[in-house]
């Protein structure tokens, strides 16, 4: 072993230590509010609102959760949220990767216009289309139906843009090789391209699921009876009043709402691991 080698390794070790320190401090700063949220859901209302706030619950209570589960028809709202979020996620993954592939790798007339329309849609502020969209959906007779909750979100410009950008970085040679082998275009997409897209699909899946799961205004307006409410709508119902907010319920609700998203994230995040994409490419 030469002295130079040892020098490099020593420098690496210092760099590593610095990196870990920075990352750990950032982690604390980033995780803090989440931890506070989780811990505070076990505090009585008075302690949550105390100034300055406490970290560890001085009085530990399950009251918020008990209150939450007794006042809310939890299984129903959870089912509604899960059904809508899963349908929306599956729809986005499928349709957006299909059109993303076409936009990135196929040549056909109208493609430019389509892509520009997608980009344009991405840039329209959401608030402006809300009322026309609702009038449209209600004229289709979809108020208070699952279809009304799902269909308008089944595809989205964000997903198309994400998939198109990602698919562009997949080498053409791979697709060309498959074409030379005589594979049909859909077969190429399904067998060759999609497996390479796992990191992007995982990303899109997480983001779509999160957005749908947290969506508040649309389900509130489209659902006209309580049995079609989703979790965030139901939670807002009991925790936010005209003149006061019930923070205990709100935080307990936030913890309950965030759990499924975290689980989805933990399930999908292994797809970010180095290796899957690269072995696929070789």
């Amino acid at each position: 072993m030469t002295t130079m080698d040892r020098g490099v390794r020593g420098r690496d070790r210092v760099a590593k230590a610095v990196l870990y320190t920075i990352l750990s401090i950032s982690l604390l700063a980033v995780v803090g509010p989440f931890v506070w949220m989780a811990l505070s859901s076990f505090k009585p209302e008075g302690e949550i609102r105390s100034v300055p706030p406490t970290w560890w619950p001085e009085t530990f209570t399950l009251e918020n959760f008990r209150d939450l589960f007794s006042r809310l028809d939890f299984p129903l709202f959870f089912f509604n949220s899960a059904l809508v979020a899963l349908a929306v996620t599956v729809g986005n993954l499928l349709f957006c990767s299909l059109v993303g592939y076409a936009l990135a790798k196929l040549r056909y007339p109208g493609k430019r216009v389509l892509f520009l329309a997608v980009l344009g849609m991405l840039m329209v502020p959401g608030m402006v289309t809300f009322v026309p969209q609702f009038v449209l959906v209600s004229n289709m007779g979809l108020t208070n139906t699952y279809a009304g909750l799902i269909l308008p979100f089944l595809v989205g410009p964000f997903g198309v843009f994400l998939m198109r950008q990602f698919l562009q970085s997949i080498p053409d040679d791979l697709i060309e090789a498959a074409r030379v082998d005589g594979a049909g275009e859909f077969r190429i997409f399904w067998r060759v391209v999609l497996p390479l897209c796992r990191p992007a699909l995982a990303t899109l899946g997480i983001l779509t699921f999160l957005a749908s799961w947290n969506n508040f205004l649309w389900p509130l307006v489209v659902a006209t009876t309580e049995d079609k409410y989703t979790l965030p709508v139901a939670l807002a119902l009991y925790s936010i009043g005209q003149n006061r907010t019930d923070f205990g319920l709100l935080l307990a609700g936030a913890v309950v709402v965030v759990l499924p998203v975290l689980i989805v994230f933990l399930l999908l995040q292994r797809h970010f691991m180095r290796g899957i994409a690269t072995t696929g490419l070789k």
Partner: protein
Amino acid sequence: MAGAPVATAPARSVEGKTSDRPAGSVQRRQRLRRALTGWAFSAPFTVLFLVFMAVPVVVSLVMSFTDLRSTDLRNPFAVNFVGLDNYTRLFSDDLFLRSSVNTLVFVVVGVPLTIVVALAAATALNSGLLRFRALFRVGFYLPVVTSIVAVAVVWRFLLDPEVGLVNGLLGVVGIDGPSWLFDTKLALPSLIVMATWRNFGFLMVIFLAGLQAIPGDLYEAATLDGASRWQQFRHVTLPMLRPTLLFGGVVTGIGYLQFFEEPFVMTQGGPLSSTLSVSYHIYNQFGFGNYGYAAAASYVLFVAIVALSVIQFRFLGERK
């Protein structure tokens, strides 16, 4: 295809290379087949897109040329067409101008800051030498999923002039910390930092997916050539990551030009309108029932978003 860079799709499909084309009929049939394939892939999306998005956009665009108010909602066709009146009125609206300046500052500082932080985090987490990667990955993503209400409570506490942690730390080094959110000069910068904190995890996840797609042998080759880690980052990672960076930049730009939640929960646009954003102003106008006016403001914002995105496509777009 020498059109605008916005649409410079990769003109490198396989078929494009065949220069010695046979008879016209074969060529035509091939072109038809290509069109059919392309649209077969695009059809499900396009149908849903046209019905649920394009139609409402057209309606709202028409709305922006009328004096539609919430009091007309039951008879929307009984409104007056006012031409560009809403648009011209915007530019004599003090609050709109004020909010435009605030939003511009937010974007110009916030977008680069968020991208740099996210890229740094993604690169660090993607470097092979790190343990506990999964822990950091999940940790950095937590702000994205944390309820905005909890975020607001904790951040208000952090920035509290009397008992806040930030001023506590400043006090240790002998600085008398200001009252961040109640100071017209400091409120907006505080929100920029907060937005960066809240959003970089989202971009980090996207950048990670992009980094994963870079073939490892490129780095191996670079290492063999004696490239330092910084050189590898500069000459391998950045160019390969360009489509993803472009995506991240555009999406963050779009999001930040519409920033709303931070001032909504932290400052309600105050103190003295110093954190009022364009989106917040639009939200208020919709709330007041000025639908036509709010729609016009939305489309001015839309134009700003398009302009920012075009600039980003210019700088980061695919170059051939």
